[in-house]
């Protein structure tokens, strides 16, 4: 197989969709882009990027624990993500209020313990962790129909969660004290958000790999929040950016010799730089 990019977009599209593996990759990529970007928008607004990163690291102890116990790797990953989300959420409060300094310290500690546990399980297991490369760098090109369906189901669940909790979650993300005084269950929402974030991170990492989760989780939201402080527009831009990153990344990788991961991360980074630079220039011009 050696597809060549031609001058005719229709021919290119036909080439892109001729193999089922490529269709599955595009389907799965589209699904995780929507899920990760919406979860990421709230994560960036709430300043919980480090927590999101730590949840993605949970794949290491999760997968090695599952290998040790002879269970499916993804089961280990989802369980570790869930437990870590609850630990971070439950221990990041002082006097009933969110404490960002404490949250990042707790998150760092959780991350270190997770890595240590991962190494322990791995040496107890004694073997070589299969699919280690897929764990880190993803497996865009070996996705089955079953996986696409599972991802779609998780994504629907995550989106329903955000549709239901959207307003109180936004309220407590921006002004937790005022939200709490109005009867929003801020503590419970914090835990629920981290648990759902863990679910989204775990599901996304199955496709993009642990190292590239952030291309979809942080970059689109961070870029969109550079451009607008509007809620609906910001969310819409975030989704559009994530889709653009994944579609462009897959297409370019298909027509060239470099990997999906390279293109996805490079496009995500470039997007953030352009948005941030554009905002700075716009403010200078407005001030001048």
């Amino acid at each position, binding site marked *: 197989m050696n597809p060549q990019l031609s001058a005719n977009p229709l021919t290119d599209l036909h080439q892109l969709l001729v193999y089922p593996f490529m269709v599955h990759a595009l389907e799965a990529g589209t699904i995780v882009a929507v899920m990760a970007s919406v979860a990421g928008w709230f994560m960036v*607004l709430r300043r919980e990027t480090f927590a999101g990163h730590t949840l993605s690291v949970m794949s290491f102890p999760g997968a090695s624990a599952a290998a040790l116990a002879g269970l499916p790797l993804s089961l280990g990953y989802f369980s570790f993500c869930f437990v870590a989300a609850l630990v971070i959420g439950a221990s990041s409060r002082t006097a009933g209020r969110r404490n960002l300094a404490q949250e990042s310290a707790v998150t760092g500690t959780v991350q270190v313990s997770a890595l240590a546990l991962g190494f322990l399980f791995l040496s107890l297991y004694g073997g070589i962790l299969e699919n280690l490369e897929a764990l880190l760098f993803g497996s865009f090109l070996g996705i089955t129909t079953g996986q696409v369906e599972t991802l779609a189901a998780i994504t629907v669940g995550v989106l329903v969660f955000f*549709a*239901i*909790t*959207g*307003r*109180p979650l*936004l*309220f407590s993300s*921006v*002004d937790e*004290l*005022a*939200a709490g*005084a*109005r*009867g*929003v269950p801020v503590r419970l929402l914090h835990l629920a958000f981290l648990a759902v974030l863990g679910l989204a991170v775990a599901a996304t990492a199955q496709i993009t790999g642990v190292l590239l989760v952030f291309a979809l989780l942080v970059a689109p939201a961070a870029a969109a*929040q550079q451009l*607008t*402080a*509007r*809620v609906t527009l*910001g969310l819409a831009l975030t989704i559009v950016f994530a889709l653009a990153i994944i579609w462009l990344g897959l297409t370019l990788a298909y027509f060239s010799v470099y990997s999906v991961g390279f293109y996805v991360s490079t496009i995500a980074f470039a997007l953030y730089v352009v948005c941030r630079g554009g905002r700075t220039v716009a403010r200078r011009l407005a001030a001048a």
Partner: protein
Amino acid sequence: MPPPAIELRDAAVTLGGRTIWQDATLEIGDGEFVAVLGPNGSGKSTLLRVLLGQLPLSAGTVSVLGATPRDAKQEIGYLPQRHAFDATTRIRGVDLVRLGLDGDRWGLPLPGRTDARRRVEEAIRLVAGSAFARRAIGECSGGEQQRLLIAAALVSRPRMLFLDEPLDSLDLANQTSVTTLLNRICRSERMTTLLVAHDVNPLLAHLDRVVYVAGGRILSGPPAQVITSETLSELYGAHIEVLHTSDGRLVVVGQPDAHAQHSDQHAHP
């Protein structure tokens, strides 16, 4: 005579075995503009939390708008004590105000609720915030942020407004303008307004009543009666002097902070 908006009878609060204040009896009339004063740690915020139904009394009774604080909660706009939003908070003032209206509701907002949008605009006009409400809140000045937060507390059209140190992080000019704004809203909307403050002076010209929390007790009355050398000395159980400066400001001298006060009590039981 109409029933008082807020009424405490022989009330006491105990937190972790320590009595914050006791034997507190006070009445606040409908539509009054009231400052809650007292040294740090004396229990001013505790009083607000009791009135908001967040803390139970250990003795006595409390009623807010003729009901229990929990039942009255929906009628109260509340502005917590806070540090300013930092510059990277990416949400617009107008969205923050909207959250004050329906941010506690589950589910997606119905599209095109013009009624909600009108009320948000009305609250922003009331605080004279139209010029900056569409900027990101983190890019607004401290005074502008405070105005938008007041709009967020007002937008649900409460009957009372509680503000915890709303003047704290503001410069003198903004302290004056926010005070004038709050007083105007209190009078025009007939909204009972309770604000916790460090310094009575920016408020002095407007106040109907002060509630003074000190030495484990609470006293209330018109400022001229409460902020005097005799009354405060009795309340603190120490010699306090209230000085009047030539420009009409009050200076309270000899006011011990709450912790010194408590260690004194331990030394002389």
